[in-house]
């Protein structure tokens, strides 16, 4: 009989996934306490991390606060900037006579849609302003380049909800340093050369190139696309989703600022292109840009040129990096005594910045349900797989919805709209929403990755054909709706007076910490 208690955790692979999981586990399990679980991370000194995930969700604020990392330290170390949402340019339709269309998916709304949903009132109104502009003060803040907080706010507290843009390599570095120095994570720098299973098919140990073996009771596979443990050793199959999300490559270019004091957009820009879309993320020291595309519809050279044209003259002489993307997920994320977190578990294209968010979510569930007894493994395995199967599928549906609602007519976009590529689950909700507003009851799962309001920002931003006028009489709280719409405008004005630009805020953060009271 193997050891009954789970006392040793080995995380294979560093990067954002490895170090974030290590830090969360060590904090949650109090690794510096007596008789506590020991967390060890083995990272290859030779394999570079992918490190293009540069956008987070607002959940990152809670993650950092819980770990005990000071917000100003994090921002300065990771060249981070503050993000209030995503601006989708030309997604609804290709620019017509030079006029482009855009819409925002923002983090704050003036009314909690689950309490009072403004969407039907906007839909039935004159639409003199866009959905985002009608229901969120962040629309103005984004348009004016303002930050969601000022120096009077406490750490991780804002006047509006926010997330971060960050340098993923530096973020992993910060987490590594913090996890080792402050949280008691043990670090081994080595390449894993072999994985050994016990007679029951559980992972027993891994060999490393120093000639040692590392034994553990629970293994976390953060080895990236290679999926050394879950894929290679435990033979959990990979389910490709390229029949749903058609993009399969990205080409990335980092663009320095001409003027170091240039303002920084407080949102991610996603600009639709002939065969995909371009991300544009402003950090404090540079922009990160990249074209996510499907190689079937554009060749690599043209794709790179498209990105260079987008950047403009600043692109001259800058190196481009081609990243093949294999979108899909493992049929199980947890098998026996091994759980995969990060790219080893799944990868969907970066459209809604779900990568880091789903790492946080996976690590949270692992921490909360951490099986200290080996006998508890099957239960946790089942719960974890069920939960993340749901979450990844919802994420895929949500991303697919952006493509499916587009009216663009290039072959790539038409292919995305072909019904054979659209999950049944997405078609079902869209059929409902064509004649009924989005409802909180459409989102009954407590771990729904994207909330009701996210769907509404995208649906109404994309001009989804929702028919409500036949049922207008049931939307009979117009006075209250009007009060909210007015509140959005008043709040915008108030915040515009209070908030600095994203750049001005970051300049101050370089010199001063946020006060904790």
């Amino acid at each position: 009989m193997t050891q009954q208690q789970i006392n040793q955790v080995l995380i294979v692979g560093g990067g954002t996934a490895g170090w974030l999981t290590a830090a969360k586990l060590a904090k949650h399990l109090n690794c510096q306490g007596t008789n506590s679980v020991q967390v060890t991370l083995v990272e290859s000194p030779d394999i570079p991390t992918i490190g293009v995930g540069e956008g987070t969700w607002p959940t990152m604020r809670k993650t950092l606060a819980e770990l005990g990392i000071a917000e100003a330290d994090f921002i300065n170390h990771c060249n981070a900037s503050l993000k209030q949402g995503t601006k989708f340019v030309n997604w609804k339709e290709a620019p017509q006579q030079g006029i482009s269309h855009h819409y925002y998916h923002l983090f704050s709304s003036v009314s909690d849609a689950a309490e009072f949903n403004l969407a039907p009132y906007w839909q039935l109104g004159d639409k003199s302003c866009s959905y985002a502009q009608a229901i969120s003060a962040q629309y103005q803040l984004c348009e004016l380049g303002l930050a969601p907080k000022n120096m009077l706010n406490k750490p991780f507290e804002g006047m509006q909800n926010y997330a971060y843009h960050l340098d993923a390599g530096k973020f992993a570095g910060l987490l590594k340093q913090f996890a080792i120095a402050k949280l008691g994570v043990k670090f081994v720098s080595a390449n894993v050369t072999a994985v050994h299973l016990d007679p029951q098919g559980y992972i027993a140990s891994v060999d490393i190139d120093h000639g040692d073996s590392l034994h553990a009771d629970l293994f976390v596979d953060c080895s990236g696309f290679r999926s050394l443990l879950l894929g290679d050793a435990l033979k959990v199959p990979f389910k490709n989703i390229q029949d749903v999300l058609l993009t399969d490559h990205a080409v990335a270019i980092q663009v320095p600022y001409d003027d170091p004091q240039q303002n920084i957009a407080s949102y991610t820009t996603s600009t639709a292109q002939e065969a995909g879309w371009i991300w544009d993320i402003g950090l404090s020291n540079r922009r990160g840009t990249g074209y996510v595309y499907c190689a079937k519809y554009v060749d690599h050279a043209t794709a790179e040129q498209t990105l260079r044209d987008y950047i403009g003259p600043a692109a001259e002489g800058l190196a481009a990096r081609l990243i093949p993307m294999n979108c899909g997920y493992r049929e199980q994320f947890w098998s026996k005594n091994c759980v995969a977190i990060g790219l080893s578990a799944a990868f969907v294209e970066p459209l809604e910045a779900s990568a880091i968010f789903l790492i946080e979510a996976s690590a949270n569930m692992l921490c909360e349900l951490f099986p200290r007894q080996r006998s508890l493994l099957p239960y946790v395995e089942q719960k974890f797989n069920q939960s993340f199967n749901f979450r990844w599928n919802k994420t895929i549906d949500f991303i697919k919805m952006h493509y499916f609602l587009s009216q663009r007519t290039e072959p790539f976009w038409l292919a995305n709209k072909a019904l054979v590529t659209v999950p049944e689950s997405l078609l079902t909700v869209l059929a409902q929403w064509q004649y009924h507003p989005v409802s909180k009851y459409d989102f009954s799962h407590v771990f729904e990755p994207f909330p009701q309001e996210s769907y509404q920002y995208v649906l109404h931003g994309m001009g989804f054909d929702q028919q409500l006028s036949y049922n207008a009489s049931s939307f009979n709280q117009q006075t209250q709706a009007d009060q909210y719409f007015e509140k959005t405008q008043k709040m915008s004005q108030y915040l515009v007076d209070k908030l600095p630009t994203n750049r001005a805020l970051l300049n101050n953060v370089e010199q001063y910490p946020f006060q904790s009271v």
Partner: protein
Amino acid sequence: MANIQPITSTTHAAIKIKNNPHLLQSKNSHMTPVIIHEFATAAQEFPVVFIKDPDTGQFRAIALLGLNPNQNLFIKNGEWQAQYIPEALTIYPFVLSNDTNNNDSLLLCLDADSSLVNEQEGAALFDEKGQQMPWLAEKGEQLVSLVEKNQLTEMFIKALTDNDLLKPQTLTIQTPQGKDYSLNGLYVIDQQQLDQLDDPSYSVLRQRGFIAPIYASLMSMQRVKFLAAMQE
């Protein structure tokens, strides 16, 4: 708006500074900065509390002069009413500013838009030969000394925040007429936290001379009700 100019014998040869015993520049300010050295004295008349600088978010020590923005209860009919004058108020319209040509040095400047700055009335900055008047040199020295005292005040505030000794406080004040005022954005010494402070930390504060100003600030909170009574 202030118009800050470095003082030179060429630009400011004919400039005089009016006498300003009633600190009229503060008549629309409900607060003024104070330094740690004057906590005990200032606390006899004003609530001595803390605010966050709106640009940097860092704490500053202030004496509260009024209970509404733009209201200074200590100037009545154009006359300063309190016994004590916070030092920062006495140096107006002079300020120190960084020399743009030399980062390490500071320049003595004045606010040329101040109503105290004129060519007819008051004390001249320079004599007929263009020599700086002795009183102006003294002002310069006073300003330099004030900068140093400010640095000590910042260290004091850092010691307070390091020990979690500041807490936000909304002042709700009832005037004798029964009118309620509420003033936000103020921070005060957290007495409960102070009482629970461990001995080594307390001892460090004592050795650095920070205990007296802490208690001065705590006791000055009693002045809030006098301010309320001063309101018409």
